[in-house]
Each structure stands twice: as C-alpha cells, then as structure tokens.
C-alpha cells in the first residue's frame, strides 16, 4: 500500500512550490489514475516518489507498506518495489540493453538479500517478456533506447517493469507519443502485470489511455493537490467538460 500524507515539495532552490499538501492512498491491487492540467504537479509527484534529487521536500511523508520512501536513496526505493516508467526514457549509448537489464535485476536482488540470477534464467525471462511486447531480439543487443522510436522506448519501459516486478508501478504519461497500435500493446503489457499485490499509479492528460488500462480510482490534481476523487466515470466526465471546474474550485 502506498500512502502519501500532506506532501509539500518545492524545486531545489525552494523558490517554487509544486506540491501543496497532497494526500493519496493506493491500496494493493488498485489501479489509480491521476489526471490534471499541465503544470498541476503530476510528473513532479512521480519523480518525488522515485527519489529524483532535484526537489526539496518541505513536509509530509510517502509510505510504501509502512516504510518511509523519503528516507531512502532512489536505488533503495527501486529495490523496495517502486518502479517509474519515464515519460521520456533516456538513451544510454554504449550500454547494451541486455547488460543494463541484468545489472538492474541483479542490483535489486542483491539489495533484497537474494542471490543473483543465473544467466540462462535471465535470458529466458527476457526472451518471454520481450516476445509478449513485440520487442525483437535485435533491439536488446543495441545500446539502451539508442535509436528506438517513442513507441519502442515505452515498450522497453514496460519490459523493465515486467522483469523488475515492482509492488507499485508508476506510469508517467506513458501514452504520450504513442500511436494507437503501440498504445494497445503497452496497455496489454500493463494489464498482464495487474495482480492483487501490485498497484499502479497511472498519470495521464487524456482519458484515452484509461479505455485500455481501466482504473479503479481516478484523482484530479490541480495546483499540487488532489482536488477530486472518484471512480472510472470521473475520467469520462473530465474528457467531456475539461478541468475548468476543478481548477477554479481551488482558486476560489
């Protein structure tokens, strides 16, 4: 279970507040969607959960199964079960995708006090995962994300999530830059990972993604807070009416 309580965050020099007392609880097995206009702080929230160092935490806590993530380094958070699928996955020339995947999986196993994966087991898991997402073997030999299209990068993020088996997967605008076919493949990849002990936080601008990854709860974010919470029908309402109602609520 992920519990965020009264989270206040500014960018590093403290000059600009981005999150203003955000509260959010996501139960095990729950898929929560966060929607909101540009600049409402959605991506910042995802980065702060994952531990990006550019932010100053002014107040609040983020608990994953009772452990405060804010006390942990980003790699320790990953080992504890946090996975952030990046909106813009980075290219790392010279690091073969397979090398990277193995390094990440082994680092997390070590951090949890488990043994390293045997190479044949690793290869088999990658092969099965890649096939499900339509990732050709040739892509796995190339430098991580180097020369990949937007859709290929997003599929690679989902493959990483499948291999790392997090307890919470955060999808930061995973639908951006995807055509409809890629959107379906990525959504199916996410749906296949849904389980009773894994939750998701799906961040998106548009309702379209939520046709494919159907959320249990929808939260509207504005000016660094959750201003409305509802079921999946709330997404449809937003699609029809826009954010104007909720944005002005906060302003008033």
């Amino acid at each position, binding site marked *: 279970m992920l519990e965020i309580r009264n989270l206040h965050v500014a960018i590093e020099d403290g000059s600009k507040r981005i999150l203003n007392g955000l509260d959010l609880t996501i139960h095990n097995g729950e898929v929560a969607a966060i929607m909101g206009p540009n600049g409402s702080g959605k991506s910042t929230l995802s980065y702060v959960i994952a531990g990006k160092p550019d932010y100053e935490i002014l107040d609040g806590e983020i608990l994953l199964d009772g452990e405060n993530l804010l006390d942990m380094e980003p*790699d320790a958070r*990953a080992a504890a079960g946090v996975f952030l699928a*990046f909106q813009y996955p980075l290219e*790392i020339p*010279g690091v073969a995708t397979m090398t990277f995947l193995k*390094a990440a999986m082994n*680092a997390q196993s070590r*951090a949890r006090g488990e043994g390293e994966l045997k190479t044949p087991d690793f290869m088999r898991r990658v092969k099965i995962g890649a096939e499900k997402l339509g990732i050709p073997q040739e892509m796995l030999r190339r*430098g991580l994300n180097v020369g990949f299209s937007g859709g290929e990068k997003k599929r690679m993020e989902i493959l990483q999530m499948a291999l*790392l088996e997090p307890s919470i997967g955060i999808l930061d605008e995973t639908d951006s830059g995807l055509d409809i076919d890629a959107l379906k493949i990525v959504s199916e990849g996410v749906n296949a990972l849904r389980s009773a002990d894994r939750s998701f936080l799906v961040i998106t601008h548009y309702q379209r993604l939520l046709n494919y990854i159907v959320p249990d709860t929808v939260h509207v974010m504005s000016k660094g807070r959750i201003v409305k919470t509802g079921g999946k029908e709330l997404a449809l309402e937003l699609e029809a009416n826009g954010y104007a109602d909720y944005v002005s609520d906060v302003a008033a």
Partner: protein
Amino acid sequence: MPITSPTWRLEDHRMASITPLKTSAELALIAQGAGLSAERQTAFGRFAASGLPHRRVEAYHYTDLRALLKDAPPLAKAGGIAPSGFAFDGVDALCVSIIDGFPNLDGVKAVSGVSLSLSGDAPDDGLAPNSVFPVAGDPIVALNAAFVDQTLHIMVEAGQTVEKPILLRFVTTHAASAYSRVVVTVADGAKLTLIETHEGVASALANSVVQVVIGDDAQFEHIRVNLADHQATVLTTFGGCMGARSSLSSGNFVTGGGLSRHQVFFRLEGEGSTATVSGASMLNGRQLADTTLVVDHAVPECVSREHFAHVLDDEATGVFQGKIIVRPHAQQTDGKMMSRAVLLQDGATMNNKPELEIFADDVQCGHGATVGALDDDLLFYLRARGLPKPEAEALMLQAFVGEALEMIAHDGMRERLEALSEAWLKARS
C-alpha cells in the same frame, strides 16, 4: 611511394633568448649529451639550442615539459629484468622485450614474411628531407634521435599477412632515462598488428619512438598501452606515412604514468587511404596525460577518424591537441575528430584543442570537443532501476570509454583493455 609533400613545422621553439636559465633537467641532459658521438650531435644540438619546450611553445602549452620535468635521470644501463605478472601474457603474440631501451631479440622466434634486426645508425630526427615525420623539429623526437642506442627494425615483406601480432614490451626497470626506437616497414599489400605496452618504475623517464612506413594497399593496426607507475614519465611518439589505399588503425589506452605524452604524427600521402586513431585515458591522483595528434592529408580522397575519451578523477589533467591538415590538392578529404572528457571531481582539468587547417575547397571535415560531468538525469534513470550510485557511474563510464575502445580491431586486446578499464572503475568505487 615518393615522399614529396611539404613539411609542416611546429612553431619555432628556439626561445633561448628569453629562457637563459637552464633547469636542472636541462643541465642533466646537456651533461649526458656531451658523451654522444659526432653523428648524434646534430639532433642533440637542435635540442640544446632550445632547451625543453615550455608553455610559450604552442605545441607544449598545456604540457610544459620545462616546468614538469624536475630532473632527467641518468641514462639507463643494460641488464635490467622485466617484472613478472605481465598484464598481456595471455595475448597470442610474438613478444619482443625492450628493457631500459635495449631491445632483445634473443630467443625471439622467426616468423615467415617478417624480419627483425637491430642497428646502431643515427635515427630519423624529424628534420632530414626524407623524414617520415610530418612534424619537423619536435624536441621529444630530437632527444630520442640523439640518445637511442640500438634501433629495432621490423620489416614485413610485400603481400605478407602476419597472423600473430608483434608485441613490444617496453619496461624501464630503474630510475633512469630509457630511449627506444622502432622502425617498421609494412611493404605494399602486407598486413601487421603491432602492440606496444609501457611499464616503468617511479622516477623513470621513457622516451620511445615508433615510426612506420605503410605501403600501398597495406594494413597496419597499432595499439599502445601505458601502464607505468604514477610517478613515471612516459613520452611516446608514433609517426609515419601511408601509401595508396592503405589503412591504419591506432588505439591508445592510458591508466599509467605521472607525466605522459603520446604523439601521433601521420601523413596520408597515397590516395584512398584511411586512418583511424582512437584513445582512452583514465587518470586519477595528479596524473597528466597528453595526446597530441597531427593528421596530414597530403593527397585527395583519404578518410581519417579520431575519437578520444578521457575520464579524469581527483586532480588529474587530460590534454588533447588534435590537428587535421588538408593540403591544397587533397580534395574529397573526409575527416572527423572528436575528443570527449568526463570530469569526476572539481579538481580535475581537461584541455582540449582541436584544430582544422583546410586548404582545399571540396572536403568534409569536422571536429568536436566536450568536457562535462556525468549526466545527472542518466544517473537518476539508472538509480531508479535499482543500480547503486557507484555502480551506475561505473556503467556510464564503461560505456563512455567503450566508445573509444570499440575502435580497436584486435579482439583479444580490446577485451583486455575493457577488463583493465573495468578494474580501474571498480578500484574507484
């Protein structure tokens, strides 16, 4: 293969009038030079007139030998023994040791198509009209020509492919000055891989020159590795000229030496030739490593590629000076040069000086130089996948250095150099 192209000269470094005081290194060198034979006095005289090059000499601006060389240790004596535990023992090669400047051919097996021999003739000092060096009057080469005792000659006959690499193991076993010279001829259509490795104890000064004439349609791969003690001085020069349709690949790997300078001087003088020059330096403490490169396109339709990577920790200093010259008739030249540096600490320094001198109007030439820290966003991406910070940094640096090492064609050497770079990174974290 006529050598007719004009000779490019370093800026004149005879500035005796403004550096009248001799340093202790210069005084030691002058005392050592007094014992030289008459035929070596020309090369020595050239050095003695100007002294050690210093920061007002453009080519030595970032590696001021006058200030950095505290002393010139005595000339090395024969009889030294190479240490055991050579990092490249497992490489299947024809190994020749050059201990304290003395090449030793005893027990070196004959290989068909190659002849190895020694001579005591005065070496090419870079000034004679038939010099293979495209850069005239370099003081490191002049000193080498003055002090070298026996020159090792390696001659590969026309059309011969030498399957095993020749590995020259240079070792300076005591705190002395060791001068070595190797003259390589790769005749028309021949193929050779030459590896030079450098080891040296603290306070040793090694000055070695490897010069090569690459014939028409010949292929030459060259790999230089500097693993000397961090208190040693290693000055090396690799130079020569290339015939038509020939290829050269030269890779350099440096983790050793307190003060080191590797000079690569090449002239492409046969049409359709290709030169690839690469290097990776991984330095820490107060090490300084300089790579100085001059690639001279003297004829049309040649290709040159240069890629250098520098990883600088602590208070280390990297220097890259790279110059591509395109002569007036060298149309259709394709030259690209890149030097990249990562600074791991605030105290580290990189001096990049890429230069293009283009006198032809139908060419494609480019150069780039970057200096920076590791990318924070990339680092976060790797850490968000569970890699602890030192491991994430090592992975990024391995990739950064790997780009340069990738250009080394010899599989066994490339793999060993990758392992050495991994070991360097592991020692750091």
